[in-house]
């Protein structure tokens, strides 16, 4: 039973990471791109508010905690945001084609982001400001590492 559970989890994480085997119908792909855009924007906006709290002289802890939970939740959803066929060939997006050319590296960066979001969320819940600052810096580093390589400069 245990073996099956692992196999199922492995299969799920593979598809979740965007290694979809079957071609995606266009309307489905566009819907995912839309969710991805909205989700990333929400993560960005949340991060901006978090920065203001964390760098302020008296951070409001409930705001930090709620922001951390929002990003951790969205980071899990991000597993489904990059299936093959949702690149610039289909529509306007900041996602570079390299995402699907260096799938392994991209997925490891995505996992690093998810791990950093989890760790930041845990630190926020625990409430120690020094740990929060350190995990927040890690999280931003994880965002930047992936964006520098896999996101196009977008003008909107």
């Amino acid at each position, binding site marked *: 039973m245990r073996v099956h559970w692992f196999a199922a989890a492995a299969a799920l994480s593979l598809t979740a990471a965007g290694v979809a085997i079957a071609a995606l119908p266009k309307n489905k792909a566009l819907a995912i791109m839309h969710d991805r855009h909205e989700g990333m924007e929400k993560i*960005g*906006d*949340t*991060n*901006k*508010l*978090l920065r*203001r709290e964390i760098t302020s002289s008296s951070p409001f802890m409930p705001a930090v905690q709620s922001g951390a939970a929002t990003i951790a939740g969205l980071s899990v959803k991000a597993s489904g945001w990059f299936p093959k066929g949702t690149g610039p060939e289909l529509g306007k997006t900041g996602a570079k084609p390299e995402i699907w050319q260096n799938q392994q590296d991209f997925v490891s960066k995505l996992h690093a982001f998810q791990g950093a979001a989890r760790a930041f969320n845990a630190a926020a819940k625990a409430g120690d400001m020094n740990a929060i600052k350190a995990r927040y810096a890690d999280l*931003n580093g994880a965002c930047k590492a992936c964006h520098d390589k896999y996101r196009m400069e977008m003008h909107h």
Partner: protein
Amino acid sequence: MPRQIPDGDAPLIGKQPVWDLPVRLVHWLLAGLITFSWWSVHHHHTDWHIWSGISILTLLIFRLLWGFVGSSTARWANFIRGPRTVIDFLRGRWTGIGHTPLGALSVVALFLAVSVQVGLGLISQDEDGIFAGPLSTLVSSDTSDKARDIHELWFETVIVGLIALHIAAIIYYRIRGKGLTKPMITGKAVTDPGAAPMRPGKWWVAVICLAVALGVARWVVAGAPPFGP
């Protein structure tokens, strides 16, 4: 700087000092830092971009002050002139050293445009909220985003436009046989006979201006008012 060029370089007959060392340093550092700011922000070095902007802020404050207490050709009051002088200059009825009445307009435009650009940068944040100017917490997150958009647009239109005009003017003078680049490096040029010579500034006044500029920049880096919003 008041110090004279060593005698070995002196026998350039007819060449007189026109730009002091602080003016030349500010000019070339600005050119270099603006180029570096542009490069760094397009190569994922937003942290360097912010420090470059703060260095530019320091230079602007220094230059503003030096424009009141520096050498004669560095002083705002000596080169900002009314429209009548600009017209006289265009009709060929103007002699002097330093900025021409028309060139002075370009200097002031560049100085103001770069000041606006620095001001916008100080309150901006990047699109991911990873980097933010030291004064971004004085405004809302939405304002910081808008400031970044305008910061980008201001560079692409006003700053690039003024730099293009600046370089076009240099090329125009070059074609007409008057080199402007070398005097900005050596500080010396052939001047109109009878033009009043440059009155140099004092080195210790420049040091005070620099100290004030660094102090203000440090205050801004700390987040301004009482070090934060």
